[in-house]
C-alpha cells in the first residue's frame, strides 16, 4: 500500500497538468476516490498552483516598452554582435597564421637539412703497402655519422708525399686547412710533393704557402683526397669505387648510368635489380671505364642523386707488377737459352723430346705470368665502379629529418624555459598587476553599462 501511495503521489503532479497517459490517469482517478490521504495531497497541490497563478506579473509600461524597443531596434546589440564576429574572425585568423608559421618553420628546417648533402662524413685513412709506396695505397671511406656536429677521423692522412692532415669543419669554423709536406726526406723514392689536391666534392684547390683554404660555407665537411701526380714510370694503380646513391627513380638512374659509361668509352659489366623489404627497388651496377675517365665518371655519378656512400680505392700494384715483369724476363731468358740450345743441337727425336719437356715448365710459367700481367693490365686500364642505386625512402628521410627537427625544437624549448625561469619574478609581478587592473576596469565598465542602459 505504501508503495502505491508513493507511486500515485509522483503521478498526481502530472495528473494535475493533464499530462498523464490514459492508463495512468485512470489509475490515479480510481485511487483518489478511495484514498483520503492522496486526495488531500492532490488538493494541497491545487492550492499551491492557485496561489502561484495569482501573481499576474507586471504590465509593460509605455516607458518600459519604449526602452525595450530602443534596445532591440537600436545599435546596442548590433555593435555587440559585430564585436563578437570580429573577435571570432581575429581568433580564426590568428590560429591560421600560427599554423602557417609552424609549417614554414618546419619546411625551412627540412630545406636546411637537405642542403647538407655531405652530412657527418667520416674519414678513415690507412696506409697499406710497404716502404715502396708511401701514401699510395690509401683507402678513403665516406660514411655517415649521426652526429653532424663533429666528425671523427681514425687517423690523419699519413705525413707522406701528397698526404697531409685533414681538418674538419663545423658551424663555428667553416674553413679547413690542409698541409702538404715535402717528400724530400723520404728516402725510398716515390712521388714529389704535390702542388694540388683534389677535393672529393669536386673542387680542385691550389696550395698556397703550404696551406689550402676552402671558402666559407663551402660545406660543413670537406674531404681531401691525395692527388697522385705523374711519375717517371707509368702508374700501375687499380682504381675502383663503390657507391650507394639514393635516387628518385631507379630505372631512370640506371639509364643515366649506362649513358655515362658509354660516353666514357666504357661499358656496363653487370646490372642486378632487386625489390627489398618495404617494396623498395635497389639496383646493383658495375661499370668499367678507362682509367683516365675515372674521376670524371665519379663526378657525374654523384649528380644522380643523394650520395649515401662513396668509397674510392686506389691500389698501387706497381711492385707486384714489376716483380712479375722481372720474373717473366728472367724466365724468358732461361727459356730462350734452352730453345737456342735445342735449335743448335742436332739430336735425335728422343733427345729433342727431352729438351722440349725441359722447356715446358718454363713455357707454362711464362704463360701464367703473362696471364697475371694481362689481368693487371685489364684492371689498371679499366677502372671498376660499383654503383648501388636505391629508391628514395621518403619515410626514412622524413624520420631522419624529424629527429633533427625534434632535437632542434628541444634545444629551442629548453632555451625558452631557461629564459622564462630567469624572467619569472618579473612575469609574476606583471601578471598580478594585469589581473588587478582588469578587475578594476571590469567593475567600472559594468557600473557604467548599467548606468547608461537605465
Amino acid at each position, binding site marked *: 500500500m505504501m508503495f502505491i501511495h508513493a507511486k500515485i503521489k509522483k503521478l498526481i503532479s*502530472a495528473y494535475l497538468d493533464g*499530462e498523464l497517459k490514459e492508463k495512468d490517469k485512470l489509475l490515479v482517478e480510481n485511487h483518489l476516490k478511495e484514498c483520503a490521504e492522496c486526495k488531500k495531497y492532490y488538493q494541497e497541490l491545487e492550492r*499551491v*498552483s492557485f496561489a502561484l497563478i495569482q501573481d499576474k*506579473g507586471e504590465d*509593460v509600461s509605455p516607458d518600459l516598452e519604449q526602452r525595450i524597443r530602443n*534596445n*532591440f531596434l537600436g545599435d546596442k546589440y548590433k555593435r555587440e554582435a559585430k564585436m563578437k564576429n570580429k573577435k571570432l574572425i581575429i581568433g580564426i585568423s590568428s590560429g591560421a597564421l600560427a599554423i602557417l608559421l609552424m609549417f614554414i618553420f618546419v619546411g625551412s628546417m627540412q630545406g636546411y637539412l637537405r642542403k647538407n648533402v655531405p652530412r657527418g662524413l667520416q674519414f678513415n685513412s690507412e696506409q697499406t703497402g710497404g716502404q715502396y709506396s708511401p701514401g699510395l695505397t690509401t683507402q678513403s671511406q665516406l660514411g655517415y655519422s649521426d652526429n653532424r656536429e663533429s666528425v671523427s677521423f681514425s687517423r690523419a692522412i699519413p705525413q707522406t708525399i701528397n698526404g697531409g692532415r685533414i681538418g674538419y669543419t663545423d658551424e663555428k669554423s667553416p674553413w679547413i686547412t690542409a698541409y702538404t709536406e715535402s717528400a724530400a726526406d723520404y728516402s725510398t723514392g716515390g712521388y714529389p710533393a704535390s702542388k694540388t689536391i683534389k677535393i672529393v666534392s669536386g673542387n680542385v684547390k691550389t696550395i698556397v704557402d703550404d696551406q689550402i683554404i676552402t671558402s666559407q660555407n663551402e660545406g660543413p665537411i670537406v674531404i681531401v683526397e691525395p692527388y697522385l701526380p705523374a711519375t717517371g714510370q707509368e702508374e700501375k694503380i687499380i682504381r675502383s669505387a663503390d657507391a650507394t646513391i639514393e635516387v628518385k627513380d631507379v630505372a631512370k638512374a640506371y639509364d643515366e648510368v649506362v649513358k655515362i659509361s658509354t660516353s666514357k668509352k666504357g661499358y656496363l659489366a653487370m646490372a642486378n635489380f632487386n625489390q627489398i623489404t618495404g617494396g623498395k627497388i635497389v639496383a646493383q651496377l658495375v661499370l668499367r671505364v678507362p682509367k683516365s675517365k675515372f674521376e670524371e665518371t665519379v663526378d657525374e655519378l654523384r649528380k644522380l642523386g643523394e650520395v649515401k656512400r662513396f668509397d674510392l680505392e686506389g691500389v698501387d700494384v706497381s711492385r707486384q707488377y714489376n716483380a712479375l715483369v722481372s720474373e717473366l724476363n728472367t724466365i724468358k731468358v732461361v727459356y730462350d737459352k734452352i730453345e737456342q740450345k735445342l735449335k743448335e743441337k742436332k739430336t735425335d727425336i728422343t733427345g729433342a723430346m727431352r729438351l722440349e719437356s725441359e722447356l715446358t715448365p718454363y713455357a707454362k710459367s711464362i704463360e701464367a705470368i703473362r696471364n697475371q700481367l694481362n689481368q693487371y693490365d685489364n684492371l689498371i686500364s679499366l677502372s671498376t665502379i660499383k654503383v648501388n642505386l636505391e629508391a628514395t625512402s621518403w619515410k626514412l628521410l622524413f624520420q631522419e629529418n624529424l629527429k633533427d627537427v625534434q632535437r632542434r625544437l628541444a634545444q629551442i624549448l629548453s632555451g625558452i624555459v631557461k629564459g622564462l625561469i630567469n624572467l619569472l619574478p618579473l612575469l609574476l609581478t606583471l601578471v598580478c598587476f594585469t589581473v588587478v587592473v582588469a578587475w578594476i576596469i*571590469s567593475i567600472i565598465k559594468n557600473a557604467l553599462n548599467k548606468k547608461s542602459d537605465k
Partner: protein
Amino acid sequence: MRKDKEIMMEYKSGDINALEEIFQRYKRPMLNYAFKLLNNYADAEDVVGEVFYVLTAQKDAYQPQAKFSTWLYTIAHNLCIDRIRKNKKIFPLWFKKNKTDKDYEELDIPDTKFLPNTPAEEKDTSFFVKRSLEKLPLEQKEAIVLREYHGLNYEDIGKVLNCSLEKVKILIFRARERLRKELLPLMEELK
C-alpha cells in the same frame, strides 16, 4: 486570433507590421518570464530587448514546423542563462552597514520593488509565493514558471530546457513538493 506561426511567416516575408504584432503579444510574457528567472528588473528589461533583437536577427532560422512560442521561450531561456552566468562573474560591491560601522559587510542588492514595504504586504500571500519561488533551484523554477505562468505543456517545456519529458515531470513534481512544504504552513497561518 491569428496564429503565431502565420504572423511570423508574414514577418519573414518582410511585413514589418507583423513584428509589431508579435512584440505586442509577447512583450509581457517575456518580461515576466525573464524577471522570474533573474529576479532583477534591469536585467529582465535587457533580456527582453535581446530576445526581440535575436528574433529580428535570426528570423530566417525559424522553421514553420516548430511552435513559435517554444522557439521564443528557448531564446529567452538561453539569454537568461547567459545573463545569470555573466552576473556570477561580477564581484559584489562592498557596502558599509552604516556610517559608524568600521566593519564592512557584503550586501546583495535585490530589486526593492518586491520586498514588503508595509506590514500589510508582509501578510500578502504573493510575497511569500515569490520568495518561495526564488528559493527553488534554477531548473525547477524554470519548469514550474513555464508550466504555471506561461501554460506550456511538458513537451514544450522539455524543448525549451533541452531535457527529456521524464525530467520535466520530475522537475515540476519536486518544485511543487518544495513549494507545498514552504507555502502551506504560511497559508494556514495567514488564514
